[in-house]
């Protein structure tokens, strides 16, 4: 589709408000030879219960339906893996269903659970996701992942999914990055940042203190992408539990309003037709008229440089939550940094920066917890968990981990969870002596982007402190508190 009807552009409405009650995560690693998947899922559920001072049995009493995000069941040679987990969690005979939308599986699972509560079908729903990518040799794993591309038109070409994405990276690199060394360094800074933030996250798989030079010297995967530009391959689980207002207030004293929007675009980038750029609330029709002049080759939209699915997910979610300018209205984001360059592309798709100017989000220092240029808090910190590059990409769990991390900031529980020496010890790790508290102070609103491969599915999940809603009953509300300016302290 390259033209939208009014009906298709309707801002989604929910029959009743939905609240995020609690969240949980397991540890994430490349492999867990000594753990079954259900053990990781139980770890996530136990954290979710502890966070609201309940026992797992007490928490389970509230759950009415279950949504399970698990993408690649062919890795485990187990169909209906969702039923295995559901049984092991002791949630029979509740209704449950599996959700799979590639890399966006976690976000899509949240989308489904939220709708179950919004509709009134359930008062409390579980969204739990996991992935297990350690049970086949790497080259067979690459083949299995490549099965997520078109099996007739793409998979036979190398059986390597990163290759199908990498052509898009190449186009963005040449057109919008203009193949500049400075752009290449900006990409590297994202890897340095995210591996660095992972050092303070006990759940994270790849904490690393590295430099831009380390990234630039790492092996080429598909030029200009190098090994340290790429996300991790992980095993682990995450969960989020949502409820209607009455149930949520019974379960916790601080539930968060949750909105999820979803978009899609062609599985094969080949099928993308040229179209007008759909605009977000902070953009104007005239601002992209000269895009092709400023960036020769950049006039085809979304071409191979933009993710229309991300734009549509943001459009719907911003409309639902009342976000008119993400940098102004949001306090932190967890983005799908599958690759450093796709992270930059996403800044543009979701309106953090206009198309063509994504790099500025990094170069301005806005994306950092503490802006390296000013020493002041970053305007809109991104991926303080370490993201997919530093923390994990256990596909079905990723989108839920992002939402979990966002919520911990609003609840002001980030330091408590991430700084607990017992948690580090339980994972066989030592809490770093220089551990930093990356809590975003006075965090009221957050965004998590969950994204599949070359952009076939994207969800945007917005969490809002209910005392700081931007919109109530479908109408834009006067902001309860203005965005913090220049300081969180």
């Amino acid at each position, binding site marked *: 589709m390259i033209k939208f009807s009014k009906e298709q552009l309707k801002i989604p409405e929910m029959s009743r408000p939905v609240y995020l009650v609690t969240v949980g995560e397991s540890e994430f690693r490349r492999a867990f030879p000594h753990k079954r998947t259900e053990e990781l899922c139980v770890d996530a559920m136990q954290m979710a219960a502890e966070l609201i001072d309940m026992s797992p049995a007490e928490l389970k009493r509230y759950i009415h339906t279950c949504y399970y995000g698990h993408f690649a069941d062919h890795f485990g040679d187990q169909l209906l893996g969702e039923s295995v987990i559901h049984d092991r969690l002791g949630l029979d005979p509740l209704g449950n269903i599996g959700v799979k939308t590639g890399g966006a599986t976690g976000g899509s699972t949240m989308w489904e659970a939220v709708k179950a509560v919004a509709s009134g079908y359930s008062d409390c729903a579980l969204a739990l996701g996991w992935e297990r990518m350690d049970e086949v040799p790497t080259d067979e794993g690459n083949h299995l992942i490549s099965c997520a591309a078109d099996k007739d*038109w793409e998979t036979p*070409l190398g059986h390597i999914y990163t290759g199908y994405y990498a*052509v898009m990276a190449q186009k963005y690199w040449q057109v919008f990055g203009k193949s500049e060394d400075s752009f290449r360094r900006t990409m590297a800074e994202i890897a340095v940042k995210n591996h660095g933030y992972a050092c303070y996250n006990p759940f994270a798989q790849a904490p690393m203190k590295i430099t831009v030079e380390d990234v630039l010297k790492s092996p080429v995967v598909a030029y200009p992408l190098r090994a340290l530009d790429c996300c991790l391959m992980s095993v682990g689980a995450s969960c989020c539990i949502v409820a209607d207002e009455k149930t949520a207030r019974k379960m916790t004293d601080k539930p968060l309003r949750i909105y999820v929007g979803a978009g899609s675009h062609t599985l094969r980038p080949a*099928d993308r037709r040229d179209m007008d750029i759909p605009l977000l609330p902070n953009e104007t029709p005239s601002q992209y008229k000269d895009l092709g002049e400023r960036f020769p080759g950049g006039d085809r939209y979304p071409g*191979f440089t933009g993710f229309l699915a991300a734009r549509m997910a943001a459009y719907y979610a911003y409309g639902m939550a009342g976000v008119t300018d993400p940098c102004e209205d949001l306090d932190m984001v967890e983005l799908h940094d599958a690759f450093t360059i796709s992270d930059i592309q996403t800044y543009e798709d979701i309106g953090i920066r206009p198309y063509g100017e994504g790099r500025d989000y990094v170069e301005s220092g806005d994306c950092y917890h503490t802006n390296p240029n000013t020493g002041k808090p970053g305007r809109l910190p991104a991926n303080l968990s370490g993201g997919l590059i530093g923390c994990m990409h256990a596909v079905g769990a990723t989108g839920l981990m992002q939402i979990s991390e966002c919520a911990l900031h609003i609840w002001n529980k980030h330091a408590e969870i991430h700084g607990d020496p017992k948690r580090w010890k339980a994972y066989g790790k030592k809490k770093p002596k220089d551990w930093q508290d990356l809590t975003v102070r006075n965090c009221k609103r957050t965004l998590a982007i969950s994204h599949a491969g070359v952009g076939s599915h994207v969800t945007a999940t917005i969490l809002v402190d209910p005392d700081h809603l931007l919109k109530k009953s479908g109408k834009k509300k006067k902001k309860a508190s203005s965005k913090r300016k220049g300081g969180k302290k």
Partner: protein
Amino acid sequence: MAVAKKKTTKKKNTAGKVVKRGTVKVVKDKYVPSGSFHVAIPNTPIFDEKGKLCGVTNPRDMTYMHSYGGEAPFFDALAKGVLLGTKCVNPDCEFKGSIYLPYRIHCPDCLSKMKKVTLTGLVKKTARVHTFMITERTGAFNTLKKPIKFINIEFDGVCTILMSYLSVGEPEIGMRVVPIFRTKNPTYTITDLSWVPLGTPKSKLPAGFTF
């Protein structure tokens, strides 16, 4: 009568005995496999360095029988050196006249069945590289020579951008390319279509390929 053409290949089973890979035909609208399709390999235990049991291997060796359905003419034509696309000819379609390559059966807008069009001449005249990627990394079962030079190709008058691979030279954005076809021993897969820079002599083409 349709026949799923499949090369017979030889494979060793665990006893070292050479077994023939089976073939498949379609008879009276049913798949008829004949010969051997999988080799049962026993599992083996996985221990850690301390000798503790962690799990077992589960070897699998399978063959899928996959229908190209309405796209079969495209893959069949490649073996004859012809590139087919499709065109929406529904007079009521808002985007009537759009030409698609990848070949798709139905118009994405009006869902009417599209008309098959031969694009070999058009692409020879206008194909150019939209973007590209060179990679040494491949997944299991890859049959292409490494490094693979992925190219995505745009054509005048075609509303999509085809993904394929370059067999000669180094890709660049904007480069003019022409198609080549594996007309000798075709595999009937998308790998039967490749591209070379405009002006490449016939002598440089990979074995089995012709213009």
